[in-house]
């Protein structure tokens, strides 16, 4: 059943069960204690009367409830003490003293009654009875008293310490056989006590039910409160999976376990949203970069086709289209390169090579550009070997050098420095250009980000530094930029040796 799969219901069922068991245990114990107290009191009364009757019969020393009969030691026993169950023993005369008679009822059926007989088990004759004794009301079950009746001839110290009582319908009866053979029965009605116990039981049940109800209600509320964040989390997660990434879980109780979970989920959602936004921005930027060359192709071809042209006219159009296509190809290659780095699919060669030599080769490569702009390249290279993909790293160095020349001032300088620092190859390429504005600096490695908002030349889509960073990081290195406006910019590449 579905209801038993729910944590709330299972919790409710579990502590409901425990509560019922505990309450029932307490209730039962309380009832038993009360019952024992009531019956103990009645038994005490019964035994007191039994002793009074026994005294009245022979006036032996009173039997104490907790010690059984007290008898004088055997040597002090009177000689004429009759042997037990002597057949033709004279019948003792029975006179109930008035103070003892008060202990028994007369016509009152609620009062105590007694019945004294003598003789054998099968042939008993009555010695005395109280006025309210009614035979059918109580039938002594001798089996029940068997122990104590059969012990009648034992010495008192061996007799059971306590007399038994028995219940018959709503009567409570006790019986004893005196050493002289008389059987004394004392009984009373326990209807009021039973009534009272029934009341107690009902009270206990009522109180127990009330506690159970309060417990279950409180528990339901508390479990509901405790589990509320779970439903909040699942609602939010559902909205997010439906596409609304701006949703967050409302964390009311940050200290609880679920609150911590919600906080963790929220930070996960935030990162997801950022990643999604970046992805969206990336796609939109890529589309945007493709728009201009496509526009060139469209306008060029539409213009060319609008009327007849001479060969030179068509050639012009085709050349313009080619330039646009080249630009798109370069952009697409860069995008694919980045995508491969993102997916970790770019396979890098792992070989040891002379980093210093590679840098000086790259410097020669950009020398023509530097000469055009009158920029001087100054290299200070320590001999160093690194492990990695020489072509990729050469791409990084060339790109950084080209940037340093292009964004330099006329007749500026580019300083290239390679040195070893604590197991790292550190390459610094510094220019003396106008620098990057502080607000742009943290974003220079972002894809499609150009500090200069306009295109500075076809093909410069703002992906170069992103690719450089991806290459360096794929080698386990880091790339940083520092810049001071009107002083220059320094790019630092750190590679593990």
């Amino acid at each position, binding site marked *: 059943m579905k209801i038993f799969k729910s944590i709330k219901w299972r919790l409710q069922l579990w502590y409901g069960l425990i509560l019922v068991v505990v309450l029932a245990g307490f209730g039962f114990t309380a009832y038993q204690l009360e019952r024992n107290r009531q019956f103990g009191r009645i038994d005490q009364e019964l035994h007191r009367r039994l002793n009074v009757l026994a005294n009245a019969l022979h006036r032996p020393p009173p039997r104490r409830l907790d010690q059984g009969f007290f008898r004088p030691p055997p040597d002090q026993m009177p000689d004429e003490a009759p042997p037990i169950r002597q057949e033709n023993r004279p019948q003792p005369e029975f006179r109930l003293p008035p103070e003892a008679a008060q202990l028994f009822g007369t016509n009152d059926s609620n009062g105590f009654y007694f019945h004294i007989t003598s003789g054998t088990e099968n042939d008993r004759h009555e010695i005395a009875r109280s006025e309210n004794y009614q035979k059918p009301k109580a039938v002594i079950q001798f089996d029940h008293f068997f122990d104590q009746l059969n012990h009648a001839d034992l010495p008192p110290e061996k007799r059971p310490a306590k007399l038994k009582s028995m219940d018959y319908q709503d009567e409570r009866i006790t019986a004893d056989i005196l050493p002289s053979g008389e059987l004394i029965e004392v009984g009373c009605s326990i209807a009021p006590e039973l009534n009272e116990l029934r009341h107690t039981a009902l009270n206990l049940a009522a109180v127990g039910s009330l506690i159970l109800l309060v417990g279950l209600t409180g528990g339901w509320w508390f479990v509901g409160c405790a589990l509320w964040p779970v439903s909040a989390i699942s609602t939010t997660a559902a909205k997010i999976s439906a596409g609304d990434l701006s949703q967050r879980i409302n964390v009311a109780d940050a200290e609880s376990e679920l609150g911590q979970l919600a906080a963790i989920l929220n930070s996960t959602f935030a990162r997801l949203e950022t990643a999604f936004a970046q992805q969206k921005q990336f796609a939109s930027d890529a589309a945007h970069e493709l728009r201009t060359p*496509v*526009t060139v192709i469209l306008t060029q071809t539409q213009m060319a086709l609008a009327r007849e042209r001479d060969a030179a006219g068509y050639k012009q159009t085709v050349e313009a289209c080619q330039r646009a296509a080249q630009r798109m190809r370069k952009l697409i290659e860069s995008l694919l390169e980045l995508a491969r780095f993102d997916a970790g699919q770019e396979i890098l060669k792992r070989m040891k090579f002379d980093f210093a030599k590679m840098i000086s080769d790259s410097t020669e490569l950009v020398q023509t550009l530097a000469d055009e702009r009158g920029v001087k390249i100054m290299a200070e290279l320590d001999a160093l070997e690194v492990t990695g993909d020489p072509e990729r790293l050469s791409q990084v160095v060339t790109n950084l050098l080209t940037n340093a020349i292009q964004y330099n001032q006329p007749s500026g300088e580019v300083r290239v420095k390679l040195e070893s620092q604590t197991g790292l190859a550190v390459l610094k390429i510094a220019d003396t250009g106008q620098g990057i504005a502080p607000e742009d600096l943290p974003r220079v490695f972002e894809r499609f980000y150009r500090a200069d908002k*306009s295109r500075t030349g076809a093909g410069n889509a703002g992906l170069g530094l992103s690719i450089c960073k991806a290459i360096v990081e794929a080698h386990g290195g880091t790339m940083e930029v520092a810049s001071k406006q009107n002083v220059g910019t320094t790019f630092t590449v750190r590679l593990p040796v």
Partner: protein
Amino acid sequence: MRILIVEDEPDLLASLAQALREEGYAVDTADNGDDGLFNAEGTDYDAIVLDVMLPGIDGWEILKRLRKTKKTPVLMLTARDQTRDRVKGLDTGADDYVVKPFDLEEVFARLRAVIRRSANKTTNLIEIGDVQIDTAARNVLFKEKPVELTAREYSLVEFMALHRGEVVTRTQLYEHLFDENDTTMSNLLDVHVSNVRKKLGAEFIVTRRGHGYCIE
């Protein structure tokens, strides 16, 4: 009709300029923001085609500064087609925008529309007496018969028709019919005017001596 194109992508600038010239417009070009603003402020263009992303001053800034002095219709070229970009353009004072990549036909149509609106006309058809001018098809009917006009003659007719009832000076005509690359002879305008009168009737363009010309 004289138009300024401000666009930094050389191939796009060249093809737009050539296409618009072939449509009969006089076209000036600028490939950066500073030149673009200088031209736009210095000459009364009939319309400006303005790219948003430009080296130097960007398109928004040009528009903002230009609107302080001139009401020239501006058609923005933008690579961003998000609503907020369009709203920004229109709010800054652009008359219309075209999103890259675009078709030349669309640029032509939008240009005609902004020029027409700036002359307070609602349709492409202008009727003056027996003369009907269709500015979309760029043809002229005289007594319900098509008239062959050269591109420059048509431009003269269209410009005069859009300024019907006003006296148009020779300087104005020079400014709007010839671009900065034309090395015009001073009497070339008179030749065009007399040709138009031959084709559309002598009374079509009235000469106001010492002032200029007028279509009544």
